[in-house]
């Protein structure tokens, strides 16, 4: 708990300093708008990151196809809406593709590499990503599209700022999911099993943990998160399969911020990355490279993580 | 002499080694104990893979002042529970891999490698690729790597793992003959008590990270506390 509080202070401090540095001469409500927009995108980085970390901890697979899965989900949802399917049903069906695709990979393909190093498993997931991206690009033409939710038009006023409901939803979802998943990992039986699996796979099977069942749950849950993130990226960023597929990269950045293990840190890091990226728009020097923020931050986190490590042993995690 | 002084290693709340001290003077000495006792941890400390309180002094040199990869040049050699032969390289190249990092001319190294191959009896297979070796050949190659050059301290962690009774006996004979080659002292971890009895003059017994006995092997093995640790027999309180 103390670590979380300390990290929260660090992230919040960093963001505050940058907000002041970049926005001190701008009207407060303009600054606020940038921050809100950044929080929304950051929540998506965090959600993707959470899916990646939960899955990685439980299965050892860092699923680089997360973005591609999200792209399929949102394109299906969009297409169903185009075909006249009732909107909420279309979204649900699109969303369902998340866990379906993830679990299909997790039960069908991943087990054949279960004994390989994490790096190899991550590289293999790239194969899945390309298959999905290729299929989606093939099935849908390159035309510009928009994915819209009714919540885009509605807005609430918070602290004098007009916040679209979609953005509010996304931030709330990220926070609630981190709390919920952390609680579930801590208090439920399945959560305990998942943590055991993450800690030591071989030992877990020896003491009778139903590995396949726990892993399937992890794949399905992460797939759901990836699907949801894909839908929201389609709404808030751009509905373009190639773009959404490679938004997995800033999600990986958020996962790194959490050191591939701490969900609260993934959330804080992701939010901070989104906000900082957004705030950089206010700087003339940096606005053209603002999307680089998550990567620079992730690199710095890695630098901190590697300090004080004298040695490394490849192979067993 | 190998002097271990108050080695203490903690992993979070777990104490893997608890002020373990021992001074080995015999040419070949053993470290035994139940699983998880801290035997490999001790070797990892000497190798420099773990930070530890206390000190490791060998023939006057404080090993902890050297970085792990420098200890090889000083004269430390190590084999692991699983043999570590590079599949990509031939037997000879595997020995070159360690010779590369020692001092001496190329001719000297070539001679050292030839001696090591000869001693372990694997000269005939020296161009065989690592991937094609069987378990015994791999163990012999590991041993050859350990005696290349003029080592001062050779640590063998379960060197007979996966070997048959005959192969173990042959390996034991080789290990016993190592001190005769040069100035090396040997430390052996193994679960095979017969092997330890045969080749180790002194033995350290660990349990739960603590030293529970140290001294001449026969005496140590007859110690009731050691028997209790291994066999779970209650030590009778006088």
């Amino acid at each position, binding site marked *: 708990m103390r670590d979380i509080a300390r990290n929260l202070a660090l992230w919040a401090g960093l963001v505050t300093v940058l907000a002041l540095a970049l926005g001190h001469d701008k009207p407060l409500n303009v600054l606020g708008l940038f921050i809100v927009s950044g929080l929304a995108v950051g929540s998506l980085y965090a959600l993707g990151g959470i899916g990646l970390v939960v899955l990685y901890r439980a299965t050892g697979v860092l699923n680089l196809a997360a973005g591609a899965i999200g792209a399929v989900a949102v394109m299906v949802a969009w297409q169903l809406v185009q075909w006249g399917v009732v909107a909420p049903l279309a979204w649900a069906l699109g969303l369902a593709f998340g866990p379906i695709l993830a679990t299909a990979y997790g039960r069908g393909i991943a087990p054949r590499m279960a004994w390989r190093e994490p790096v190899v498993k991550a590289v293999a997931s790239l194969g899945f990503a390309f298959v999905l991206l290729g299929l989606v690009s093939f099935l849908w033409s390159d035309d510009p599209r928009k994915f819209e939710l009714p919540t885009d038009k509605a807005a609430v006023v918070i602290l004098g700022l007009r916040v679209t409901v979609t953005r509010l939803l996304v931030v709330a979802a990220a926070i609630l999911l981190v709390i919920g998943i952390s609680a579930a990992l801590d208090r439920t039986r399945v959560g305990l099993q998942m943590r055991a699996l993450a800690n030591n796979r071989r030992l877990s099977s020896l003491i009778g943990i139903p590995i396949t069942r726990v892993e399937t749950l992890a794949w399905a849950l992460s797939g759901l998160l990836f699907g949801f993130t894909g839908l929201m990226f389609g709404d808030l960023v751009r509905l373009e399969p190639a773009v959404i597929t490679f938004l997995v990269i800033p999600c990986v950045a958020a996962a790194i911020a959490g050191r591939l293990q701490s969900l609260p840190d993934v959330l804080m890091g992701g939010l901070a990355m989104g906000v900082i990226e957004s705030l950089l728009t206010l700087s003339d020097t940096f606005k*053209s490279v603002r999307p680089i923020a998550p990567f620079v931050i992730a690199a710095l986190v890695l630098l901190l993580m590697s300090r004080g490590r004298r040695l490394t042993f490849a192979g067993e995690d | 002499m190998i002097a271990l002084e108050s080695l203490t290693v903690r992993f979070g709340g777990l104490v893997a080694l608890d002020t373990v001290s021992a001074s080995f003077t015999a040419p070949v000495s053993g470290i035994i104990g139940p699983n998880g006792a801290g035997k490999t941890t001790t070797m990892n400390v000497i190798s420099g893979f773990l930070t530890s309180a206390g000190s490791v002094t060998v023939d006057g040199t404080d090993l902890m002042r050297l970085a792990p990869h420098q200890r090889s040049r000083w004269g430390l050699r190590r084999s692991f529970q699983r043999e570590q032969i590079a599949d990509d390289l031939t037997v000879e190249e595997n020995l070159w891999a360690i010779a590369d990092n020692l001092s001496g001319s190329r001719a000297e190294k070539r001679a050292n490698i030839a001696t090591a191959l000869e001693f372990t009896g694997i000269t005939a297979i020296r161009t065989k690729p690592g991937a094609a070796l069987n378990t015994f050949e791999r163990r012999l190659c590991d041993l050859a790597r350990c005696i290349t050059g003029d080592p001062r301290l050779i640590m063998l962690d379960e060197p007979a793992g996966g070997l048959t009774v005959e192969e173990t006996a042959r390996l034991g004979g080789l290990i016993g003959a190592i001190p005769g080659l040069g100035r090396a002292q040997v430390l052996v971890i193994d679960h095979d008590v017969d092997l330890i009895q045969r080749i180790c003059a002194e033995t350290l017994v660990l349990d739960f990270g603590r030293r529970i006995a140290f001294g001449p092997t026969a005496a140590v093995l007859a110690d009731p506390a050691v028997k209790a640790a291994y066999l779970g027999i209650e030590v009778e309180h006088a």
Partner: protein
Amino acid sequence: MQITRSGLVGLILAALAILVLPMLAGGQWLKIFTSTTAFALAAMGAGFMYARLGMVSLAQVGLMGIGGWVTLRLNHAFNLPFEANLLIGAAMTSVLGMILALPALRMRGLYLALITLMVAGGLEIIFTAYQFPNGGDGFWGVGTSFSATMRRPFLGQTDAGFLRYALVVALLGFLLIEGHRRSASGRAWALIRRSEAAALASGVNVTLYKTWAFGLSGLLAGLGGGVLAGSLGLLDASTFRASESVLLFALVVVGGARFWLGAVITAVLYRVAPGLLNNWGVDADLALVFFGAALLHAVITAPDGLAGQIFGLFSKEAAHDRA
């Protein structure tokens, strides 16, 4: 120095290619083959690092971009010969790569892959924002409508001559790696691959060797980028997107990271296949599906890639055939 059978085949093919290919190919194909050679250089760099050390670089095309950028900028800023621009570009790519990878080199292999992913993403943004030098002023060297000439090497002025030049550079790059592999470096790499602990226990300075391997990989990427710059005269940011780096690595695994033939297959699949498929009426997107499936297949069943399977047909010792 003994040459393996496949090595001999490779050298003969290389000699043939250098002598004959530029004469046979015409027009567009000269430039396509030159690009392919550039990507083969990069593939070699990423390939040896993965095959020999298990290190994954998902930023290799991005690093090519650095090499290309430096080569172009030097070309427009000074009057040095092409060789100087090329080598300085390659050296700077190498150094920059090592600096960026350094934090991850002391951690588990997965982190290196992830940090290279971050680097690829970052480079994409920088190239998109600042474009490539075209003879303009300032540090970035981008002017509105300039297109200053790219000076080619003395021995490679024409497209055909430059293809020959590029092939020679590729051969030299390969020999550089092979030279390392047969020496103490290669033995240290093999030990590191087996177990970093065992390598340390054998006196290998693991971090140093891993860093230098990454530097070598970056050097080849930089050479590839410089060759691209020399061939095309002007580079475009879209060539060096993160997705391109990721795709190239996927194809490195498919082609066979271990072998020179693998690098050739990789480059051909990467550079030539999509265009060919288009010509034959097949949607290039399906090529992506095929590549993804091929990667999964390679990881699961054929770790030595297509090259490994080809060599396996000719020799029952393919697994140990090291060229």
